[in-house]
């Protein structure tokens, strides 16, 4: 009943920013049809009267005081950067909005 076409997978891969080969798209599409059938079972018992649990603990209102704590040094902050310039992270050209 549930299935994902090759194009559906391609759209999801786009949203998730993962390049995929044609073979991968097709393979995932076949697999997902099986997996989705298995996971769709949750719908059998998820009635309208059942509350959703997004978190295992019933905690509320956990806050921190508005106090400044030391930051990383810029060297530490940039230590993993694939590229840097002028103490900033250098990234390829950004397409899209300004």
């Amino acid at each position, binding site marked *: 009943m549930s299935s994902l076409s090759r194009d559906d997978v391609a759209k999801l891969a786009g*949203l998730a920013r993962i390049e995929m080969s044609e073979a991968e798209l097709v393979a995932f599409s076949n697999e997902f049809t099986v997996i989705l059938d298995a996971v769709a079972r949750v719908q059998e018992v998820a009635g309208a009267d059942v509350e959703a649990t997004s978190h295992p603990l019933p905690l509320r*209102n956990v806050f921190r005081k508005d*106090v400044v*704590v030391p930051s990383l040094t*810029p060297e530490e*902050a940039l230590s993993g950067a694939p590229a840097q310039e002028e103490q900033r992270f250098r990234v390829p050209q950004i*397409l*899209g909005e300004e």
Partner: protein
Amino acid sequence: MSLTYDDVVAKYEPVLGLEVHVELNTNSKMFCGCSTIFGAEPNTQTCPVCLALPGALPTVNEKAIESTIKIGLALNCSIAPFSRFARKNYFYPDMPKNFQISQYDEPICVNGYVDVEIQTDEGTKQFRVEVERVHMEEDTGKSLHVGGATGRIHGADYSLLDYNRAGIPLVEIVTKIVPGTGKYAPEVAKAYVSELRDILRGLGVSDVKMEQGSLRCDANVSLRLIGSDVLGTRSETKNVNSLRSVERAVRGEMIRHAELLNKGERVVQETRHFQEDTGLTRSGRSKEQAEDYRYFPEPDLVPVAPDAAWIEELRAAIPERPSLHRKRLQEAWNVPAKEMEAMINADVLGIVEATVALGADPTKARSWWLGEISRLANERDTAIADLAITPTDVAAIVALVEKGELTDKLARQVVEGVIAGEGTPADVVAKRGIKVVNDDGALMAAIEKVCAEQAETAEKVRSGHLPAAGALIGAVMKETKGQADAARVRELLLAHLGQA
């Protein structure tokens, strides 16, 4: 381009929607303890949390929650007894986690309103702008585009990212659609943002500096034929960085939409960028294919469930709405609107109010702050608030003048002394030896001396030519180094010359 604004509003009714983002002025960021100070060296205010290093977790700044609730209360919203953070998922290099922690279907404040007044052909008219929601989120980093001709994103070779701003608390205030403004839509938009800015400033929760980006407005505009109840396609204009621009952007978009519609073309639902220089908007990202943000409750944070006691505590700290407050002061002080405006523009209203609260006469307090003290501030090229003179000092000086212990002229010397850092008015009076000469004996001696020196003038006065007395009074004042009370000198002089 032949359409005039009047043509547009004769045929179409504009529908407004305004989204305002406000950076809160907390000391630390929304979800980590990094400083929020503006203008620091790049990437010096970052940590594992705001850089989204693997393993880091957010923690919520309590002050930001309180500020948001205060904003909600000031905008007449209901505060949700249960609200949650949600992740808004989309990839963008200035957003380290590639999701923004925001709020989705459970915002903290809902259903408020702001009443604004604008001047219409029929006089002052009030519009109610309804607020749909007020929610919390976090700011993004800043990108610097390198290469290309313009320094803009298009045509850049690469970009440099500074994450100091990433994670600064933002509050988003979203209005419901605002119909019924007719031709006044641009003015209503401007008045709303202006009123909002005043309210936020009054709450002390943000710097609300549009030019620095701590208050940003997106204006949504659509048109429909007058009489129609079908909403048109809207555009969302960003980059509107001043009050004047809000008005211009709305007006400009109304004309642009009308031109398209008149030509039988379609308005594209998209983001547009306002350009200060031309007053026009430029197309940005198309929203035709709406991004799927895949919101879901943020599992790293727990719900915010403010209890009534907390909300009431915050409500008690909400100041009177600035526009109402002003009206009340204007009536109480009996000041003309122009004078009120002058005080607001000079940013001394609060100081004058404080001075009056300390017992000073409103007119005197106003004239000191707007007059002499403003002049001295200008001379020193500093803000009045930065001068070393307080409402307490000014109230004390006004009181001294009233008691006759200072003349206006002497009081000016005292003001100058206080500003020069010589201490309180009492200190300055003591140190400089400033005092009104009200020892009648000393005054009489000076009067006799002056009358002897200027016997001819004295004779004129004695013979009833009172205007001549001015010259003698002036000379006496000079003789007493300005420390005498001119009124008393006049009294004694006239008595001495048989004119009392």
